[in-house]
């Protein structure tokens, strides 16, 4: 497929995946434009995926950059291009985990400075300026409550839940991303859903966050 025809990306996830397979093949064949398009295709998805987990726009940008650098380095090792989506998400999950470990380690020794907090506030201010102050307050409240809901889940339940309902991955893709059995994924997803269904705060959160 010529590159000029690939500029419009279809909205459907399946079409995007097939598009990604073609672009990944072309990128491995040595086409730099194909890799750029692959990045364009997945950048926002991966940025969102990272943001859901670390909830810092600035850090999410850095981690996303890091993820695509890893993809660029290792794309030649990918044997089956149909697994590109799962492969990309597995890199992302690992990078996010590494970032969280580093951050925890840094906070343990008090390395995190006030400068970072200031920059993060500045970043939040910039992004909220685009959407308005009320939206900004609703957003902050949403993430606060969302975090408290997720904190009731174990780390694997949380990861499985996020991959399924926020990143919109299928059970098979989640099992390949996390390198777990499909039945294990389903079990953890079931536990997560049970905890969330019992929790009335999800409905309240959704009510409060409605535009």
């Amino acid at each position, binding site marked *: 497929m010529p590159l000029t025809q690939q500029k419009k990306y279809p909205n459907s996830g399946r079409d995007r995946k097939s598009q990604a397979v073609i672009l990944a093949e072309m990128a491995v064949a040595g086409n730099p434009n194909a890799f750029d398009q692959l990045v364009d295709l997945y950048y926002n998805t991966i940025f969102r995926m990272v943001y859901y987990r670390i909830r810092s*726009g600035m850090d999410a940008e850095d981690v996303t950059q890091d993820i*695509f650098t890893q993809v660029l380095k290792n794309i030649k090792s990918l044997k089956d291009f149909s697994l590109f989506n799962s492969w990309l998400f597995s890199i992302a999950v690992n990078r996010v985990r590494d970032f969280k470990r580093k951050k925890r380690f840094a906070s343990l020794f008090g390395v995190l400075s006030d400068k970072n907090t200031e920059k993060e506030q500045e970043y939040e201010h910039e992004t909220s300026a685009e959407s308005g102050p009320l939206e900004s307050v609703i957003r902050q409240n949403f993430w606060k409550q969302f975090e408290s809901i997720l904190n009731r889940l174990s780390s694997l339940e949380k990861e499985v839940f996020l991959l399924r309902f926020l990143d919109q991955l299928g*059970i098979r893709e989640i099992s390949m991303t996390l390198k777990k059995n499909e039945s294990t994924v389903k079990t953890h997803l*079931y536990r997560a859903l049970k905890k969330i269904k019992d929790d009335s705060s*999800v*409905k309240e959160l959704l009510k409060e966050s409605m535009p």
Partner: protein
Amino acid sequence: MNKKNGTHFNEEQICKAIIDESQLLPSENEHLSDCAECRTAVESFEKDLKLLGQTAERFVPIPRKRMVLHEKAGKNFLWGWRTAFTVAITILFFVITMHSDSMKLLFHNKTDIADSELYSEDILMTEVNNLVENSLPAKYLFVSEEDNTDYDEDFIDFVVPSIDEDVLSSKENGGNISC
């Protein structure tokens, strides 16, 4: 309650239906297709989860910077050259410093060795000369009363003339001994 296909779905069955409908038993599937109440319960929870995902997506900030993989690669390239240059300079500095030191050391060593060799040769020659003059050790010189080797031979000859010379001179004078 749907009497035909058993009781309504409990939480476990609702969660199962959301995760994977194929996990449900055939009777449960049948009940779900027949019972509007259970279908609504499943759909409502599904809708909440979908709405949660959509709301989360809406509240994610728009990333400010885009991917700059090629620029980064360029920067890395430049950084690599800078690093290589610095490393090369450092190595060169160390090589020059070490080389000059070793040369100095080498030169210094050579002169030192030559000097010490000359000095030891001098000592040896002095010892050889001493032995030629008198082979006895110093303590035997005292016993043999020859320790005072620094005497002036001309002065001794003047004080105590040699007998050989006297004999010779008397023979020259026709056997007369002059006083």
